[in-house]
Each structure stands twice: as structure tokens, then as C-alpha cells.
């Protein structure tokens, strides 16, 4: 079958096509398209999409498409998109990965937009530095949080144990844990989660000893004695029944759903302050937040206020100006900030913090009060972790499990951790 087109039809058709394509280009020329990518759950997506709609209504001609994934799926997707020259314009970035992405040229430096288009004047200086790599700003912090202990206050009360205070030491906390386990008010519940494989906990403990995980130039900043003592402390807690046994702790996949507190296996567990709202939503008992314990009554400086996550702009983006404008709107527009609440952490802008504080519900207030009330427990933000820090975190946990299951002694565990992390960092 052949298709015959008469000359008249051909002319008419071409004219229609031409006018259509003209329409198309003019529409495209006016419309800026922004693509967003972030990790998180549905509630975060709802908040983010509402802010995007608000932005579109105030900036006609801008269309925003947002996509979100869980933490585990997020990083493979982002890496693949960047490699395929198909990166989203606005990228949610984590403190752990910002150096890697910035040094490899995947992110656009933003300092030239300040202060005219990107106004971070009333941000905490330390948090702006947190988003900087080699003197350039690559990420705008979306909120501050801090590592925290989550307490099941109902379980503490049932066992007749007082809640820990800001002055409680690890030894005292372990005694409380053992008492709760011994009281046995709930079947299968222990006092504390086993924190030996938790990187934020280990880092906090190291900082109280005046050490750190990594130096600013990406070397290991603790030694065998530190690591051995750390594993030894938890081995003693385990032996005393203060914390859950290793096979229970191994259920924890490092998320809210499988934390031993959410599973009802421990009365106290370890998390981050901006997760409190989600923790409370998952637990029938009343929860509270407190700091990580002190190693000595007079030790300080273990905690820090951490940028919970950043917005970065892709270096491949064709509309960097628009992306910067969107980010500025995201962190500085009162209506947007109210929609976002403290779900991504406490706003960094002092003015926006006041806007949010006035409207917070009880759970939001807990997180805000905790982060702003750390006092002498909060110290300086450590430098961004080097490439390989993700592997180091898995290694800390892996060896903690070997010690927990009795396959390694705490002192051998300490030796092995230092050796492995040194090798990982050397490989880069």
C-alpha cells in the first residue's frame, strides 16, 4: 500500500506542522524545567511537592518534576544519572558524599550567587562551612540535627528506673540498662540497644576523648587503644545484660523500622534528632530524646549540630540560576518553611527557625528543644568524611558483630578495625 499525498494536502499539512512547531518552541522557550531528586519517605515527598507547587504558582513558566527514593536506592540512581549526563538539576546531598561529588566535578559551586540570589546571611556560619569543599559552596543545608538517644519513657517507668540526664555517664547508663533488663517487665526487652557498631556513637565517644574518626586530610584519627577500649566497653555491657545480645542487634538495618527500640527489644536506642517524629509515630509508648552519655562527668564536646542534608545543584544543569532560586525559596520563604516543618531538621536560618517554632506540634518541639539545648555537649562540626567512609562504617559494624558473636576479642577487634580502615582510606 502506498500513501499518496496531493500537493495541496502537502502544503496545508506543512503549514499546520510549521505553526505547531512554532507554538512548541515558543512555549519551550518560556518554560524552565527543573528536575529534583531526593531520598526519603512519602511524608517528606508530600511536603516537598507542596513547596514545588507553591514555587510554580509564584513563578509562572517554571515546571518542576520531583522524584524520590529510599536511601539505599538513591545513591546508585544518582551515580548512574550523573555518569549518564542526565543528572537532576537539584540534588539532595548528604554530608558523607558531598566531598566525593564536589571533587569529581558533579556539583556547581554556588558562592557567586551569594548574597543577591542566594541569601544565607542569617545561617549558622558553621553550617555554611559544612556545605563547602575546598573553599567553594556546593550544598545549602536544609536543616540541622544531631545524633541522639531515643528513650522509651514508659518502659523506664515500668522498671522503676529514672531517665538519664545530661550528666549521666556511660557506666551509670549501663547500670540503668541492666536494671531494666533484670526487672523483666516486658518479655524479650533489654535495657539498651548495642551501640558498638554505630558510627555516630563511636565518633561521639572518640570526640569526648579528644580524638575523631578522620582528620581534615582524610586520614584515620584514632588508634588501636581507642578502638579496643570501645569494643571492650560494649562487651562488658553485653555480659552484664545491659544491652541486647548480638543476634538481636543484628536485626537492626540502620533504619527507623528495625531499630531495637521500634522492635520493642530495647528501652533505649540510638538515632538522629530529626527522626524523632517518625520514631514516635511508630511507637505506642511515649518516647523522649536525650544526648549520648558522657564518658566522664566532666567530659564535653562529643555532639555537634550536623547539616541533616543539603540541596546541591548539578554542574550539568542547564538552568543553574533557576535551581539556585528554587533552593533559596526552599530555605528562606516563610510559607515554604512552614510546609516543610522540621522534617529535614531544624531550619538553619534564624528567622525561619522562629517562623517554624511558633507553629510546631509537641513532637517537633522535642526535636527543636533537644538540638538547641545541647549546651556544652555540642562541639565543632568535624570535617566532611573522606571517600571510603561508607566502607569504614560497614567495617566498624562488621567487627562489632564479630566481637558480639564471640568470634573476636575486643582487643583484636580494635587492631583489625584500625588496619582495615587504614587500608580502605589508602585505596580511596
Amino acid at each position, binding site marked *: 500500500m502506498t500513501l499518496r499525498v496531493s500537493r495541496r494536502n502537502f502544503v496545508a499539512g506543512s503549514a499546520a506542522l510549521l505553526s505547531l512547531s512554532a507554538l512548541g518552541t515558543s512555549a519551550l522557550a518560556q518554560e524552565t524545567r527543573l528536575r529534583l531528586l531526593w531520598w526519603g519517605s512519602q511524608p517528606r515527598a508530600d511536603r516537598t511537592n507542596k513547596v514545588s507547587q507553591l514555587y510554580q504558582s509564584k513563578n509562572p513558566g517554571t515546571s518542576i518534576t520531583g522524584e524520590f527514593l529510599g536511601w*539505599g536506592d538513591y*545513591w*546508585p540512581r544518582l*551515580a*548512574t544519572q*550523573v*555518569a549518564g549526563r542526565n543528572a537532576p538539576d537539584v540534588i539532595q546531598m548528604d554530608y558523607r558524599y558531598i566531598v*566525593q*561529588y564536589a571533587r*569529581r*566535578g*558533579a556539583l556547581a559551586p554556588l558562592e557567586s550567587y551569594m548574597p543577591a540570589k542566594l541569601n544565607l546571611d542569617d545561617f549558622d556560619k558553621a553550617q555554611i562551612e559544612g556545605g563547602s569543599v575546598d573553599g567553594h559552596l556546593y550544598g545549602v543545608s536544609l536543616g540541622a540535627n544531631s545524633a541522639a538517644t531515643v528513650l522509651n519513657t514508659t518502659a523506664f517507668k515500668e522498671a522503676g528506673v529514672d531517665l538519664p540526664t545530661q550528666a549521666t555517664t556511660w557506666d551509670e547508663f549501663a547500670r540503668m540498662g541492666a536494671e531494666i533488663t533484670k526487672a523483666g517487665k516486658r518479655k*524479650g526487652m533489654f535495657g539498651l540497644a548495642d551501640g558498638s557498631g554505630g558510627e555516630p556513637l563511636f565518633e561521639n565517644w572518640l570526640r569526648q576523648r579528644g580524638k575523631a574518626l578522620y582528620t581534615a586530610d582524610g586520614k584515620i584519627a584514632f588508634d588501636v587503644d581507642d578502638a579496643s577500649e570501645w569494643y571492650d566497653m560494649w562487651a562488658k555491657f553485653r555480659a552484664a545484660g545491659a544491652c541486647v545480645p*548480638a*543476634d*538481636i*542487634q*543484628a*536485626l537492626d*538495618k*540502620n*533504619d527507623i523500622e*528495625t531499630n531495637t527500640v521500634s522492635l520493642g527489644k530495647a528501652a533505649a536506642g540510638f538515632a538522629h534528632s530529626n527522626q524523632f517524629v517518625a520514631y514516635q509515630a511508630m511507637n505506642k509508648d511515649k518516647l523522649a530524646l536525650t544526648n549520648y552519655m558522657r564518658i566522664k562527668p566532666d567530659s564535653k564536646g562529643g555532639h555537634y549540630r550536623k547539616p541533616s542534608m543539603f540541596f546541591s545543584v548539578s554542574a550539568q544543569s542547564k538552568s543553574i540560576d533557576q535551581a539556585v532560586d528554587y533552593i533559596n525559596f526552599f530555605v528562606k520563604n516563610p510559607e515554604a518553611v512552614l510546609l516543610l516543618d522540621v522534617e529535614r531538621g531544624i531550619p538553619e536560618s534564624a528567622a525561619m527557625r522562629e517562623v517554624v517554632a511558633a507553629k510546631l506540634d509537641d513532637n517537633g518541639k522535642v526535636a527543636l528543644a533537644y538540638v538547641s539545648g545541647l549546651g556544652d555537649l555540642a562541639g565543632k562540626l568535624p570535617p566532611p568524611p573522606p*571517600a*571510603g567512609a*561508607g*566502607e569504614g562504617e*560497614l567495617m566498624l*559494624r*562488621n567487627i562489632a*558483630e*564479630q566481637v558480639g*558473636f564471640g*568470634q573476636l576479642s575486643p582487643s583484636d577487634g580494635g587492631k583489625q578495625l584500625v588496619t582495615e580502615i587504614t587500608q580502605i582510606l589508602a585505596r580511596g
Partner: protein
Amino acid sequence: MSNAMRTPAGAITVERYQGAVAEGRFRRLWNANAPGYLFLLPWLIGFFGLTLGPALISLYLSFTDFDMLQSPRWVGMANYVRIATADPKFSAAMHVTLTYVVFSVPFKLTFALLVAMALNRGLRGLPIYRAIFYLPSLLGGSVAIAVLWRQLFASDGLVNAALAQIGIEGPSWISHPNYSIYTLVALSVWQFGSPMIIFLAGLRQIPQDMYEAASLDGASKFRQFYKITLPLLTPVIFFNAVVQTIEAFKAFTPAFIISGGTGGPINSTLFYTLYLYQEAFGNFRMGYASALAWILVVIIAIFTAFSFLSSRYWVHYDD
């Protein structure tokens, strides 16, 4: 052809003549087969674009250092050297994977054969049973089933609740390094559907009169199974064993879900493909992961070749 022969000498050379014939043959072939190639086109595009192309690229990448953000840097054999000499996680992953292959394949095939023989006895409503038994295999690779499995074998899960009924205190199956791999083996055995269907088809091929003759001669059921069923089924057993071994080497989803992507506790569920995935997407070492992938290809090829060589001695094809 005869027309060409009759043209005056010198006007056409042998080469030109042969070329013309070849061209004509090609054109005829093309005319006859064009629709076939046209219909094959989607598959051809898929094969070259999505299978062969990426495979060759990954072979190239396996000789490079590639972090997906910058362009690949040629490092020669360095990745392979590190795998062979300085990677304890590679041997850990290999150990886990081989354990899985060695336990899951024989158990799965035995179980599949037993169920197939039970179903072969002319059951009423056979298609329904077949469908029900096949279901786990269909769902098998899915995330939902792995999550369900995690629930079943948790320390306070259904399995331990059942054990408690008979007075046994079960361990936490999925979070103890001594047991976690065997929960994954059990999950794989449970997905016996596809070898079972193939066994069923194989059993149907065995002529009934052989059994009748054997029972007239007084052979017991066991002897009939051993002397008739098994030998005649060896081609099917062979096929299933090869396919299931390859599948087992490639297992990924259950370990990924049950360990939360960590391969823990203590690398006890660090399947080879899971380690490969961690290296590629967790640690941005796409070059190294490509080398790992090619090593897996070679290992699977060796296993398969070995199966084919050994098959001469135990697989009977008699028609």
C-alpha cells in the same frame, strides 16, 4: 547460470561471474528472509544494545578505574590482581556463594522431583496444584517474598512460635551468622516450582508399559524408581541442575533484602552479586565491580563446562 556461460570469453571474468552469482544469491536470500529479520529486529536491537554492547563495555571497564563521575582510567590488570591477591571480602563472598550453591541446588531438585512425582499420580485438579506449587517461584525473586521470609524467621517470628509449641527455643535465624545462610537456602528450596514443572513434563514422557512390565516381574516401587524413573529422567535432571546452578550463582534479591544490603551479620549473607553491587554502587568502584562480574562469568562457565563433560557418564539419551 547457463546464460552466463554462453557469453563470449573475455567479456566476463571468473571473479566477476562468481561475484554476480553471490550477489544474486544474497539478494534472493534477503528477499526470502527479510520479513523474518524484520520480525527479529526488536530482539536483535535488544541483544546488541542491551546485552552484548554493555557486556563488552563492562569487559573494557574491568581494566579501568571508573567511579562513574569521571571518565574511566586504564589500569591494566590491577583490578584482577587485587581480586586474586588482596581482597578478603572476595573470598568471603565466594565462600558464601559456594555454600549456597552446594546446599540449595541438590535440596531444591530433590524436593522438586518428589513433588513432581506426587503430582504425577493422576491427581484430580492437577492444574490447580501445579499452579499453586509454581506460585512461590513466580513470586520468588520479588522483594515482598524476601520481606515475608524475614518476618517468618525473625527471632519472634512464626517459625520460632511453632518451635516453641513443641518446647524448642529457636535461635534468631536471620540474624545469627551460623544460621542466616541456611534460611536463604530454605527460601530457595521453597521456590522449587520451575524445576518441578520440568520434572513433571519429563515424568510424563516415560512410557507407562515399562512400569507395568516391571511390576509384573515383581519389582518393588523403589526398584522401579531406581531402575526406570531415574535413568530415563537423567536428561531432565541434567538440564535442571545446570539451570539451577547458574541461577544460584546469580542470587541477589533475598540476601539484599534480608541483610538490608549489608551482607551481615559478619558477611554471612554476603552473596557474590551483593558484594559486586556494594563495590559498584556503594563504593563507586565500577571498574572493580566489572572485573568481579567477569570473574563470575568465568566461574559459571567452568561449572557449566564441567557439568557437560561429566554428563557423558551419567546422562542417558535413549530413544
